[in-house]
């Protein structure tokens, strides 16, 4: 049960790039993906910036091999999962394995449901059925699993903004329980009018580019994307030609049980998630070299997450940053996108900057990184996720 699980492949698409290499370049160069909304048809495009993937649905269709009328969520998932799966070499080198696809999403095919409902509301006999049949998150997952040729286990998780972290945990546990040999795990979410208007009505969107962990932060920017890691058992890792990127050494799921949409003042949820992951990995807080923050840029999240970090790490703080300053908040995909960034940080010994940080939060003695740096001896990276409904999960990736 305590056998290690290894990361042998990564794939990502986000506002800063359509694959791992492009995203990495942007992270190194400090180039944000947040911009004026260009692809989503919305009345808010002039007022609310977002980090869209810089491709139209037609372009995504060509890249993913899915029909242009497919949900954008599925196309993003396909591109990132395919990159991770192909790159891992698992299917090519060891074709007979028991494989699984555990994908997370909050939006599913709701971008298409929006189109359907526009016609349906006028006349219940109107609206193209092909626009509604993939409303469920599970349809997105199975569509991609079929294209990847994965069929031993398929499942979908939806726990708001921590969804992908729970997908990665579940995938790792299916391997540890010897039910699967290899799992593609992560998540996907497209920018939709549903989520844009939802967060706008909650008054948590910044009309300017977001400033996570800044004293004067005033909300988040939404993003979109997908991120997946390929997890394998030790046996499978030993059969592959390339060394694994790193090991997934710790994870923990806890609930803040405070409020449906905000996190407790003391950060109980994130505190429990982080300390649980450390305990599982047999690690001390001082072992963590870098924290990839949840860091949305809202007043509530950053003060709550910051309080949890202070409780756990004071007085020796690891380096930390929120890459949502690059990608925006990709919701159900965020923990997948950030897991990929965390894996790359461990693998290459890199620490990403927290963009646009001018005035550090006065409540805390720590300051997130403002410049890109390299650290060859980087051993353990902690990735945090906090979501609606109090769902908090943390993951730890460790150098081999």
């Amino acid at each position: 049960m305590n056998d290690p699980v290894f990361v042998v492949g990564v794939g990502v698409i986000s506002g800063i790039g359509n694959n791992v290499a492009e995203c990495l370049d942007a992270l190194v160069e400090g180039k944000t993906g947040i911009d004026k909304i260009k692809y989503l048809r919305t009345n808010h495009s002039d007022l609310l910036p977002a980090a869209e993937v810089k491709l139209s649905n037609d372009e995504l269709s060509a890249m993913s091999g899915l029909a242009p009328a497919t949900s954008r969520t599925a196309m993003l998932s396909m591109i990132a999962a395919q990159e991770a799966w192909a790159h891992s070499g698992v299917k090519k080198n060891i074709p007979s394995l028991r494989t699984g696809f555990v994908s997370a999403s909050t939006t599913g095919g709701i971008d298409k449901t929006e189109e359907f409902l526009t016609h349906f509301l006028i006349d219940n006999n109107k609206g193209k059925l092909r626009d509604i049949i993939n409303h469920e998150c599970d349809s997105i997952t199975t569509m991609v699993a079929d294209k990847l040729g994965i069929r031993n286990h398929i499942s979908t998780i939806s726990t708001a903004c921590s969804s992908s972290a729970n997908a990665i945990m579940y995938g790792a546990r299916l391997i540890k329980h010897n039910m699967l040999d290899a799992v593609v795990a992560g998540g996907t979410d497209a920018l939709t009018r549903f989520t844009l208007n939802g967060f706008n009505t909650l008054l948590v969107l910044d009309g300017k580019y977001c400033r996570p962990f800044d004293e004067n932060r005033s909300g988040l920017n939404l993003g979109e994307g997908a991120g997946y890691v390929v997890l394998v058992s030790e046996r499978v890792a030993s059969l592959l030609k390339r060394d694994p990127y790193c090991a997934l050494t710790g994870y923990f799921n806890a609930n803040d049980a405070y409020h449906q949409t905000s996190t407790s003042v003391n950060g109980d949820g994130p505190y429990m998630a982080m300390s649980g992951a450390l305990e599982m990995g047999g690690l001390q807080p001082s072992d963590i070299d870098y924290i990839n923050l949840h860091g949305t840029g809202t007043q509530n999240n950053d003060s709550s997450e910051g309080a949890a970090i202070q409780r756990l790490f004071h007085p020796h703080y690891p380096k930390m940053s929120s890459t949502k300053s690059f990608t925006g908040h990709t919701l159900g995909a965020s923990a997948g996108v950030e897991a990929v960034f965390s894996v790359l940080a461990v693998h290459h010994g890199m620490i990403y900057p927290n963009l646009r940080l001018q005035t550090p939060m006065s409540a805390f003695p720590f300051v997130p990184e403002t410049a890109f740096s390299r650290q060859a001896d980087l051993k353990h990276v902690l990735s945090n996720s906090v979501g609606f409904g109090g769902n908090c999960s943390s993951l730890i990736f460790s150098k081999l």
Partner: protein
Amino acid sequence: MKAYIRSAVAISPQKTFNNPAFLDDPAEYRNSRLTSIEPDYSEAIDPRSIRRMSRIIKMSVASALACLKDAGIANPDAIVTGTAYGCLEDTGIFLTNIIQENEEPVTPVAFVQSTHNTIGAQMALLIKCSRYNNTFVSGGASFENALLDALMLLSENNAANILVGGMDEITDTSHTVLSRLGLYKRQPLSNLNLFNTNSKGTINGEGAAFFLLKNTSSPNDLACIEAVATFYKPEAATELRQFINSFLVSESINYSDIDLLILGNNGDSKNDEIYSQLQQSVFKGTLSINYKHLCGEYPTSTAFAAWLAANIIKKNNIPVIFNQGKISKNKINKILIYNHYQNIYHSLILMSSC
């Protein structure tokens, strides 16, 4: 991986909630939409909380709270839910609002409660449960994944008791859309005659069922969950038989050990062919009952089936509505639930007397 069912509570289109009688007075429906028989929630849920809750949240929270109460557990070590559609009503309200108000929706309430994890989250909030909390939205395998997660958690020794549930709701919009997709019977019929029509289409259903699972036995356990498995899109009938065979092998039982099969027949002739083929091969001679005439067809109907199996084992009684007459065996020790949802996910849940 074995779990002891300490309590099981269902709100369904039958009188299953707060009712000591066991399906002795089946509710009859004469159209293709079966609606849950809901209790007076003010007895089960704090009235201040009820006001904002949609139907699926109320159904789920009321059954989850009753389940905890029956088990005598105030705060479980984990809450795991499975729902294919999530909170459809709130999703529909907010989407409609966006479209009709031209992207100037007035209130975020429906948006906030539309997320798929709302039920698990509401439960955590209501009982202040800060432990493991997860939600599966795996279509016709949502409840099965929630069960699998619970069984794994129990064997990982991090949890001694787990609240696990499956739930889905019908809304006017979903019923209209699914009807347009041709899923339901075109002619009116009684749900109690569902299996006598030999025609296309099924009947729509909904419900919520919760279970309190423990890693140790106690005198009042209803039954045990021995194992759960899912199988994705079988390419041929032989593959399906292999899946069932290897499941039984891994559980070290023979077909003859199964005292009762609970099958997911839904009245659609094409859908049900898969069950009849298996009943002519691997399941030949095994006593079987159907359940979807009582709860309707929906992606998490196996949660209702598991509630049914737990009660049959505990009471050692198959209610008259299942038309089994007198059964030859003295004791129903092992029940196998086999269901497939639209031939995408096939699942097996093995339950036993404790």
